[in-house]
């Protein structure tokens, strides 16, 4: 290899050129040393710290089949415990004959509790873009939207929103056609903290969750007048 080729090879990967190949050229030997030193510094810099509990959160996300966001710093054992609990809970859910809209919705709401505290209203056009991805023409959704993201609802990419009804949070899930547990029969559900309602519209499942039953019907009536579905 001539000097030019050796120099080029050093820049490509200094570890691939051994000292013997450069024995008669002090300039190239010095260049090799410099590049090896620089590579060591680069390697150290590239090793940025990995966020705490990242691996455990990735495993939890797979168990839940939806992304897991880091909201608070959890010690390792707390995240490991939550992986176990989530696994048990969802294992139980999947063994129930109907892991229905209500159970799925409540599980999501509890999992994303911080979403209920969102305050700032999202711009309408950006909310419309998310609905458009599901084939829904929202027109002018007549309730403020405080939170909006896609989630995996029972394995189906769905929309999770938090609406504002006169200062109170109402969660809305919009599940596109194709969900295994979709039902055209209206469903009511509740637990100690939340009440919920599920209906089907143009093949899409709409699931509402709120802390008061009065909010559900009022919201559903308002949405019914604004949501249009493109089939």
């Amino acid at each position: 290899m001539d000097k030019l080729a050796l120099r080029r090879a050093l820049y490509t990967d200094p570890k691939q050129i051994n000292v013997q190949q450069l024995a008669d050229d002090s300039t190239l030997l010095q260049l090799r040393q410099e590049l090896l030193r620089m590579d060591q510094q680069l390697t150290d810099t590239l090793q940025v710290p990995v966020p705490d509990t990242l691996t455990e959160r990735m495993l939890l996300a797979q168990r839940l089949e939806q992304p897991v966001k880091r909201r608070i710093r959890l010690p390792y054992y707390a995240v490991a415990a939550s992986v176990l609990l989530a696994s048990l809970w969802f294992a139980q859910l999947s063994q129930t004959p109907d892991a229905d809209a209500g159970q799925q919705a409540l599980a999501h709401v509890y999992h994303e509790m911080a979403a209920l505290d969102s305050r700032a209203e999202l711009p309408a056009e950006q909310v419309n873009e998310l609905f458009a991805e599901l084939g829904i023409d929202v027109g002018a959704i007549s309730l403020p939207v405080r939170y909006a993201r896609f989630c995996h609802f029972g394995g189906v990419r769905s929309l999770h929103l938090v609406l504002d009804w006169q200062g109170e949070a109402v969660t809305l899930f919009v599940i596109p056609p194709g969900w295994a547990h979709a039902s055209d029969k209206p469903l009511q559900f509740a637990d100690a903290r939340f009440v919920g309602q599920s209906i089907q519209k143009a093949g899409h499942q709409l699931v509402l969750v709120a802390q008061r039953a009065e909010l559900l019907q009022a919201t559903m009536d308002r949405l019914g007048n604004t949501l249009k579905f493109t089939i």
Partner: protein
Amino acid sequence: MNSQQQNYEALVRAFTPDLYRYAYWLCRSAQTAEDLVQETLLRAWKNISQLQEVQAARAWLFTILRHENARRFERKQFDYADVEQNSLTDVTAPSPEHAVATDRLHRLLFQLPLEYREPIVLQLLVGMTGEEIARLLELNLNTVNTRLFRARAQLRAQLQDNATDGVPLHG
């Protein structure tokens, strides 16, 4: 736990740190890197039956991550995911990490064009050979070698410029 689940969990434990670091240097944002790794691993789980050999796992996962990153730009989706951050984030704007990176090499790496940064990260961080990088980036080996050459040459020149400006060498 079935064997597929066990294999998947082994992959996650083995590769999450490197996937995160690679994603970080790809998109220059810790938050986006986390999201990318999450989407990558969820997609990997959905397609786990495609992975025939354990030896192919690294390349397979990094390929998925690159595709997820490309998809991020194709969607032009605003980042609604972080509920504490109510203002919208433009994913192409410099990240907070970029703004505050005081470590000189960190800044210089951020400043490298992506086409140079990606090969050098894959070589030094992940330990890929030129051939492996070429397959992952779908380039020929000569192109990869040229980009590695240019990355090191640019970094070396900038470090020397900083040295002559009187800025003390870091480390």
